[in-house]
């Protein structure tokens, strides 16, 4: 199959993302035309304040209410997509995804604990809630990894999915228990865990930024190891990859991305499945190209899903996680059905 050249793919996806962001910023109780959205955005550039004649109320709506949420959707979508790519590469399994393998629930449990205990230690820009979420995600991934290992070789998909499901249930139960025991924070946890971008603004964006950026840098480093790992861990070792190091950095970067997404927007499932697989169809499996393509697709997907979530039942707002599940769960089942062979592992 002839593929579209990589640079053209990237530029096209960036343009699509830009367009959909501008469109997204115009959506809401006050509709704003794309032209005025652009005007409002550019008005912050020194010397261009009055160039487009956009009212200050419009500027306020765009900058103070909508932009942070749109950027949050962008980063969350990208983070979920790259962590999907990394988990699929690590487990050599097309069904691996932060939500499916329990990383999201682990992150949710970590974040819940942090909220209830009102943890306040932070390292520079690394805030406590995402930090606790990261710890939870690392623990979850480590546990799934250890449980699904069958001596040597690739973990069979069944073992991986069952371990992920069981751990997810366990962590969700723990979250529910904590919620039941601390009705003081019930409201806060409940709304956050639904997986919604509603009411999210600059503070959430700044809180997730260091985590997402760190994970993106690590993701850039692990693309070639992920290629080599597709031979299986033993063969990868024989090809000169120190598998232990690679595995560790992959788990850290994927957990960082997952927890950044979960800590700021709750559990949003299946983006880590939809984006990587679509990206593979467009650009092929080489991770150096797959990773950025999937990130952009994830961002586009989540911004689009959030637009829908805000408008289908307006003025009521759907949690965006509901929409990604409606799209993603059937896709997951389709993968499960069409790739029966992966279920047995090797």
């Amino acid at each position, binding site marked *: 199959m002839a593929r579209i050249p990589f640079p053209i793919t990237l530029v096209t996806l960036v343009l699509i993302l830009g367009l959909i962001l501008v469109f997204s910023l115009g959506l809401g109780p006050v509709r704003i035309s794309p032209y005025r959205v652009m005007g409002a955005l550019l008005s912050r550039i020194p010397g261009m304040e009055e160039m487009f004649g956009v009212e200050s109320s419009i500027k306020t709506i765009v900058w103070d209410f909508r932009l942070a949420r749109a950027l949050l959707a962008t980063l969350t979508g990208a983070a979920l997509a790259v962590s999907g790519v990394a988990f699929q*590469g690590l487990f050599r399994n097309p069904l691996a995804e932060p939500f499916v393998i329990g990383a999201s629930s682990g992150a949710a449990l970590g974040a819940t604990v942090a909220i209830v205990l009102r943890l306040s230690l932070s390292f520079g820009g690394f805030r406590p809630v995402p930090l606790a979420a990261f710890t939870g995600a690392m623990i979850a991934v480590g546990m799934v990894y250890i449980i699904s290992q069958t001596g040597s070789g690739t973990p069979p998909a069944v073992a991986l999915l069952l371990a992920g499901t069981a751990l997810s249930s366990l962590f969700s139960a723990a979250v529910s228990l904590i919620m039941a025991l601390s009705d003081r924070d019930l409201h806060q946890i409940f709304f956050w865990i639904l997986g919604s971008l509603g009411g999210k603004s600059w503070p959430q964006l700044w809180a997730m930024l260091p985590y997402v950026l760190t994970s993106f840098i690590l993701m850039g480093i692990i693309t070639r190891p992920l290629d080599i790992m597709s031979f299986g861990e033993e063969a990868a*070792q*024989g090809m*000169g*990859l120190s598998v232990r190091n690679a595995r560790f950095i992959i788990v850290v970067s994927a957990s960082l991305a997952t927890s950044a997404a979960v800590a700021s927007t709750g559990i949003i499932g299946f983006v880590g499945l939809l984006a990587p697989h679509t990206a*593979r169809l467009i650009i*092929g499996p080489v991770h150096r190209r797959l990773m950025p393509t999937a990130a952009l697709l994830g961002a586009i997907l989540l911004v689009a899903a959030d637009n829908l979530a805000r408008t289908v039942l307006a003025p009521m707002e759907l949690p965006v996680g509901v929409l990604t599940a409606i799209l993603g769960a059937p896709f997951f089942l389709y993968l499960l059905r069409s790739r029966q062979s992966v279920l047995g592992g090797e």
Partner: protein
Amino acid sequence: MSTLETENLFCAYNGETVLYDINLRIEPGRFICLLGPNGSGKTTLMRAFCRIIKPVKGVVKLDRRSIQEYHAREVAQKIALVSQSNRLAWPFTVHQIVNMGRFPHRGWVSPLSHEDHSKVEEAIRVTGLWEHRNRIIHTLSGGEAQRAMIARALAQSPRILLLDEPVAHLDLKYKVAVLDLVKKLAVEGLGVVVSLHDLNLAAMYADTMVLLSRGRVYAVGGPRTILTKKNLEAVYETEVVIKENPENGKPLISPVSRWKVSPLKLNMPQ
């Protein structure tokens, strides 16, 4: 040129010893065959050779230095392994797979250099896959896929090439094609270690044979000294007949079955 040797090598899985006291020397330019029944330790020995498993006792030495003292990438620059199962998780093309063979020389992030690309191209051409280079590995025939894996190993520019059952699932044509290629590489100076089940193929290609039995070296030597009725019957626990191959004078081996059809039962009703 590199040499690989083992000294009093013992290997174990989960406390169960599978290789006992192996002393071998792999030299450049030789085609070495590992023979022996299932479970005799051929694959384990291959894994120990390229540092995938760590010996419990003894050493594997690459150029007189213990292989454990090398970084994983340094080992892979000199030793390449093509293992038995080569199931890739994702649908890479031949070219993309052979590119990965340059990993030991490039590491995690540096882009492939001009030299890397020419090595990759050479590996693809040598294995006769040039016109298939943009095809996805899963769409190739067994013989082509196996050659792609060998091309990837060659792209590592190794001094020693280890092939674990490279022709097990191939038909006659590809068995000969793959082993001819490997023989050519050995003649050109590569140290080659191939594990084979097919004794006749081994007889055709091997310079040296290593006959393994229950994790021990049973005998080492040329095809004529190793492929004897006494050795084979002892190691494979099966009666064999050995004749001379009229084509090349090498031993030709066939197992003997003691199951006989009773002559009476052949009188089928007309």
